[in-house]
Every structure is written in structure tokens, then in C-alpha cells.
């Protein structure tokens, strides 16, 4: 697990401004509540974006970073086009989710956190996303028995897609990849190193 630099420990707003993508926007929120009614999975957000911004200002570090809420973001961009203050709300939610993930504070077993990690790992390996390997990894993320159950439940859909040539079982043997895989991997590792340095993560690259 990585840790954030302790210099912000007593000021969560400052920590968010420095370490969370687009975090410098949080103080611009005027608490109008427009975004609160915008999320498609709204009933499943324990704290709406509006509330999260209020909690950040109130210094509720633990409550915000351990929250399930920002993981409910479907990236629909409803909020962004409606916010009278033009806050890039979607990106702040993504940024908070990523920050909580990197600190190891996201709720245990959060399914969107799990697929996000699988997706990225899949991408970095070949430069492109291999849908079959990604799906299988997703089904088996909770262990072998649950994986078989999950895969069985979706079997009809999988077979339908195979028949329609929209899921290729041969992908398991290789599949699509970029030629310059190694360049991509080095480039991504470098980007992560720079970002970790800038955001004060110790144990960079972990």
C-alpha cells in the first residue's frame, strides 16, 4: 500500500486540491444541489457529489475516501453540463475514486474498483483491451467456484456473441495487441512515476 504525504493530514481540502484530479475545483462548488439529482444510479449513492464536496470542505477525510459513492459514477456527464459553476464533477469523482484506490481505502470488494484494475492491467499488457480475457478475469475475480457460477449465468449471452462473431474464443491464445507493447509499458510506467512523485506518494510504482 502507498501512503500520501503527511503534510496535508490536517487539511483535507488542501490534500484533495493537490492530489486528486481536478481537485482544485472543489472550493468553487456553491452547494446548489443540481448535480445531486443527476446521477443515473442516484439511489445507490450514499453521498451525492454535492454532499461529497461539502464533506471535503468539512475535513471528513476518512468518510469520503472510504465511501462507496464515487464508485457509482457511470461517467454519464449529466452533472458537468448542468453545473452552474462548471465544475468537472465527473473527473473529480474519478479522481477521488482513484485516490482512495491508491491509498487502499476503497471499500473492500468494491466491484467497479475490481473491474477498473482488471481493465487497466489488461490494457497495459498489450496496448489494447482483449474482451474475452477481461470478461474471464472479471468472472473469476471472486475465486474459482464463484467464477464458474458467474460464467454459467452469462453463458447464453457469451454463446450468442460468439455466434454473432462479436466475441472471439481464440483470443485466449493471444488476440489483438499493439506492436510496440514494450514502448507502451515503459511510457505508462514513466507516467505513473511522474504522477506519483508530483502527488507525493511514497513507494512510487507500488
Amino acid at each position: 500500500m502507498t501512503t500520501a504525504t503527511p503534510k496535508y493530514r490536517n487539511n483535507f481540502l488542501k490534500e484533495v486540491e493537490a492530489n486528486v484530479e481536478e481537485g482544485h475545483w472543489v472550493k468553487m462548488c456553491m452547494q446548489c444541489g443540481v448535480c445531486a439529482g443527476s446521477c443515473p444510479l442516484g439511489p445507490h449513492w450514499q453521498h451525492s457529489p454535492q454532499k461529497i464536496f461539502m464533506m471535503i470542505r468539512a475535513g471528513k477525510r476518512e468518510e469520503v475516501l472510504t465511501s462507496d459513492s464515487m464508485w457509482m459514477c457511470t461517467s454519464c456527464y449529466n452533472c458537468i453540463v448542468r453545473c452552474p459553476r462548471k465544475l468537472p464533477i465527473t473527473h473529480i469523482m474519478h479522481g477521488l475514486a482513484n485516490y482512495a484506490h491508491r491509498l487502499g481505502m476503497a471499500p473492500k470488494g468494491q466491484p467497479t474498483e475490481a473491474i477498473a484494475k482488471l481493465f487497466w492491467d489488461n490494457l497495459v499488457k498489450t496496448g489494447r483491451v482483449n474482451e474475452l480475457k477481461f470478461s474471464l478475469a472479471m468472472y473469476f475475480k471472486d475465486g474459482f467456484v464463484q467464477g464458474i457460477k458467474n460464467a454459467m449465468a452469462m453463458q447464453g449471452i457469451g454463446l450468442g456473441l460468439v455466434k454473432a462473431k462479436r466475441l472471439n474464443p481464440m483470443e485466449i491464445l493471444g488476440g489483438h495487441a499493439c506492436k510496440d507493447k514494450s514502448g507502451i509499458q515503459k511510457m505508462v510506467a514513466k507516467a505513473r512515476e511522474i504522477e506519483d512523485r508530483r502527488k507525493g506518494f511514497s513507494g512510487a510504482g507500488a
Partner: protein
Amino acid sequence: MAKKQYAFYPGCSSQKGASASNFPTSVGVVCEKLDIQLNEIPDWNCCGASIGYGEGGELPRLVINARNLAQAENHLAGQDIVSGCPACWLATRETVERLHESDSLLAETNEALKEAGLNLKNTVKARHIVEVLIEDIGFEAMKKPVVKAIEGIKFAGYVGCQTNRPFGIAGESFENPQYLDRMIETVGAEAVKFDQKVTCCGGALAFSEPDKSQKQIRDIVESAYDHGADMIVTPCQLCQANVEIYQSEINKKQGTKFSMPVVYYSQLLTVAYGGSAKQAGLDGQLIRAEKLERIAGKQ
């Protein structure tokens, strides 16, 4: 007439044997008829989609998109990047804008790109195929190659989220964009009123939060039925896949009897331009679009 040239970014879901592989065949026909030439960006990579943030963070995500931009700059100088996938378009365009706004981010991006032997000047424009059709071709010219009117089929034009927000198509409203309905009418079909036009299908969360997202999908399909649509038509790969694929799941769990075909606007255009069902990629539907196949099969 000289063909219009674009740097093409196909995206992962449009690869052979992937979930939107029924999309590119129809796009090929449409471009052929409208004198558009799409030149694939050499060795393009994944955009990170809407879920890349979880592990990828900010700079790594910008950098993977910057690589595609740099490849286009180097190999297809002077051409706009065009993508048919809203997630690819969004990620690419966002990267262009963020790197324009911040010199320090651009410098950091180039520091990382150097590892792959690349450098970005950030001179390319990132566009969606729909923008090319509307802005560079226009509805009049889009109508010209029509040889078969798509008569007798009612479509629910489902724009979804990411083709529409945050960027959208210039001059259109976020709440009720008109261009898709106009495309439907351009090929002689009927666009029904559709109150779920810009509703979110759940996006990537259809996978991680299936029950929560299936409520979205159910609302979308139900509304299409309520408004008398025969089919849903969409510009979005994720909308297409989610709304088509999960109908059988919803039927199983909730006892509904959904069987609503979900096609791309490009498949409609292809059939109207005289393309076969196969050229339109209609053999790639899980829920067959029989009425459209019938028109495609008519001589």
C-alpha cells in the same frame, strides 16, 4: 471528387471478433458512398475507456491517448483524428484540451512519451464520425446516395451519454439533441418520440453493477416499446452492446418479453444506400433486426 482524408481511430470494441465488430463494416460502406477516406492510425492503442481512471489515474490516462495523437501527427499529418466510438472520441478530445490548458501537463506527457520514442506537439483535432457526417458532409449530401427508403420502420433514436455530453455535437442541446432523428428521417424512416433519448445505459457499470444498471436498460427498452418503436438506433458502441445484450437477462429475471433490436445509424445508412444485410453487419445482431434485413434483401 477527391476523397476527404481522416486519421482513423477504430478503438478496441471495433476490432475483429470484438463486441462492436458489426459496426465497422457498415461504416466502411457509408464512407465509400460519401467519399470519406479513413486512414487507420498505425499501431493505435486503447483509450482507457470510461473505467481507466480507477487504476490508471490522470497522467497515465492522458499519456496513452497522447500516444495515439502523436502517431497521427507523425504519420497522417494535417488530418483530423476521427473515431466512431464515443469513449475513444471523448478520451482523445479530453486529452487534447487538457494538454492545451496546461503546459506542465504537456511537458510531463512528453517526458513519458519519450519512453516510446514519441513527442507530441498537440496540433491534431479529435472528432467523432457523426461530426464529420453532419459538419463536413451535411444532411443533403447524406441523402443523395439513398436508393432504398427505409419505409415502414419506426425507430427510437437513442443518443445516450457520451456522444452527447460533455462535448456533444455543435449546436445541439444536451437534453434533446435532434441530429439522430434527422438522420433517421434522411433515410425515409420514422423517428418516434422517445423520452429516454439521452438516458444513461449504465456504461461500464453494466458489468460491475449489473442489477443497478439493468434498471436503466429496462427503462430504455420499455420506453421504446411504449412509443411504438420497432427498433432502437444509436451512435454508441456501449449503448448498443448494453441495451441489446442484457435484454435476455432482464427477461429471465423480471419476466419481461423484450426483443427489441438495437442497431447503429451506420447500419441504417448502409441499407438505405443499397448495401446488403451482410455489408450492414446485420448478421452481427443478437436480436435480429428482421424488418431492416427484409429491406436490405429487396432488389
